[in-house]
């Protein structure tokens, strides 16, 4: 079912010519792009024959292990793009490939894990049972499941809450369960749609740091939808700026504030961080005003 990839993509300096099979696959994986979108368009049929162009001319490449944020004003098609990558929806034109396969095949092969803005836990299942849901659906045996669930609970810091039910958890805890669930099958691609959108600022910052740690430990590529400029800059290797009507990509900004593993809280006060925030903000505002009112308005917005 799920591809048996090692969960740690060699943070320690492993010689590249190691003869072990596992390393060979890891190297092969590294050369495949996680997501490639070519000329993707999605048009929704609106009411009374009106058409909504949610996305047009999307060209996007996410490298294996890369953290990419999608940012843009409401309605610019961020969620739509994520759903297309996840094959929860189909493009009206263009194509999307995930790890070299079609999006549909990638979904069937369980190449990605997904988390939404709402945790979306099943209320009748305990925390542990929620996390093991994908494993159970794909026929993992009980012992494997138990071991993996214990591992994931440790990872998201909820080891004491395995037997609790979702209605007994805070919003932040529910979201951590959802993230653990999305990691259950060790996906090499993580799709997240505003996963911290419903959280307060403090919880949110802690979750961001945790996500960076988890990502460093798993080495997964992440496509992360957000509304928050600081969040995008803090987390990402690359920020993709989108603009609405029609939804399209207007800019891509490399941030790369350093290795995911050693990004600490103090990074939020770093000069490079502020530079990134400014760059993304300008890109966003430029994109917003460029087609309509011209450049004059975009500049003075801080």
């Amino acid at each position, binding site marked *: 079912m799920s591809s048996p990839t090692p969960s740690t993509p060699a943070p320690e300096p492993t010689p590249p010519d190691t003869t072990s099979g596992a390393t060979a696959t890891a190297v092969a994986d590294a050369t495949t792009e996680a997501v490639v979108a070519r000329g993707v368009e999605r048009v929704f049929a609106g009411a009374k024959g009106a058409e909504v162009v949610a996305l047009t001319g999307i060209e996007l490449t996410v490298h294996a292990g890369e953290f990419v944020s999608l940012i843009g004003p409401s309605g610019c098609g961020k969620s739509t793009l994520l*759903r297309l990558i*996840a*094959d*929860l929806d189909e493009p009206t034109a263009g194509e999307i490939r995930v790890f070299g396969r079609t999006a549909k095949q990638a*979904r*069937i092969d*369980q190449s*990605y894990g*997904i988390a*939404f803005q*709402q*945790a*979306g*836990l*099943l*209320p*009748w299942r305990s925390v542990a049972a929620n996390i093991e*849901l*994908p494993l159970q*659906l*794909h026929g993992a045996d009980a012992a494997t499941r138990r071991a993996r669930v214990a591992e994931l609970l440790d990872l998201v810091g909820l080891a004491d809450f395995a037997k609790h*039910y*979702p*209605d007994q958890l*805070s*919003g*932040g805890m*529910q*979201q951590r369960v959802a993230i653990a669930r999305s990691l259950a099958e060790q996906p090499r691609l993580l799709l997240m749609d505003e996963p911290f959108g*419903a*959280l307060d600022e403090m919880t949110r910052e802690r979750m961001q740091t945790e996500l960076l740690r988890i990502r460093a430990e798993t080495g997964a590529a992440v496509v992360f939808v957000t509304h928050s400029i600081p969040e995008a800059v803090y987390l990402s290797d690359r920020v993709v700026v989108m603009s609405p009507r029609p939804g399209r990509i207007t800019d891509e900004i490399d941030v790369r504030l350093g290795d995911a593993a050693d990004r600490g809280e103090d990074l939020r006060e770093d000069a490079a961080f502020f530079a990134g925030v400014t760059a993304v903000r300008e890109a966003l505002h430029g994109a917003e005003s460029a087609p309509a009112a011209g450049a004059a308005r975009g500049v003075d917005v801080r």
Partner: protein
Amino acid sequence: MVGVLALAVLWELYKLVGPADGWLVGAQEGVTGSGIRLLPRTSDQAMPHTWDMVARVIEPVTRAQGALPLGVVVLLAALTSLGVAALGWLVGVVVGFALALLMLGFRIAERAVLPFVILSQTVPLIALAPLIRNWGSRLEFGAFSWESWMSVVIIASYLAFFPVAVGALRGLQSPDAAHLDLMRSYAAGWWTTLFRLRLPASVPFLIPALRLAAANAVVGTVVAEISVGFTGGIGRLILETAVAASSDPAKPWAPILGAVLLGLVAAGFVALLAAFLSPFRRQETVA
């Protein structure tokens, strides 16, 4: 229990203060049956004392030698009816659920079947009972022959299936888009989604439907027994004892209490089922 006691007290209180011949408006002198009776008569004939009713339960049914106490006869009849009602409930639940699944699986089925399901409940029971008995009596193959209790089961299930079909359909359709997306992202098929998501999610909708179905099955059984002519059940007993009311006013109340007891047992059974399914009744809290 408190409710029963309160009812008994109210009953006796009314007997105490209410006029023995009720209260008539616009009655003409010397013309019996004229006027409108606004309050029921409180004579022992119409409203026997509660203790008389209780006492009557332990006395034999008839004066005949070796007759069983009325209470035992009522209990036996209630038990018979319970069996029939339970069977009717079960058939109704199975049919109702099957219809809900059909409507869930095929959009067209929902449009085609649902109006008929709703329409079916507008056919009065009284019209239906003789029909079913007639059809049933024509069925005969080999050793199998149609018995009148089977007609009662059919009628009870006819009343029971409706709330189940509607409730189950609503429940099965209740998971929100995010959960369905999640199942799709797991590449889960229709049946897996049904068992892992839709069925558990339907429980909060299903419990009230099952309760309503149980009540309907009991009422359907009691009424159908009378109109189909099935002897041995509580419905028939109500009819038989009602005839004796003029000479033995406390007697018909026993089977009526029996019918109430029947309803309570049915409700209790569903409550037990609900307790068993309680883990599935947890509500998701939106963070």
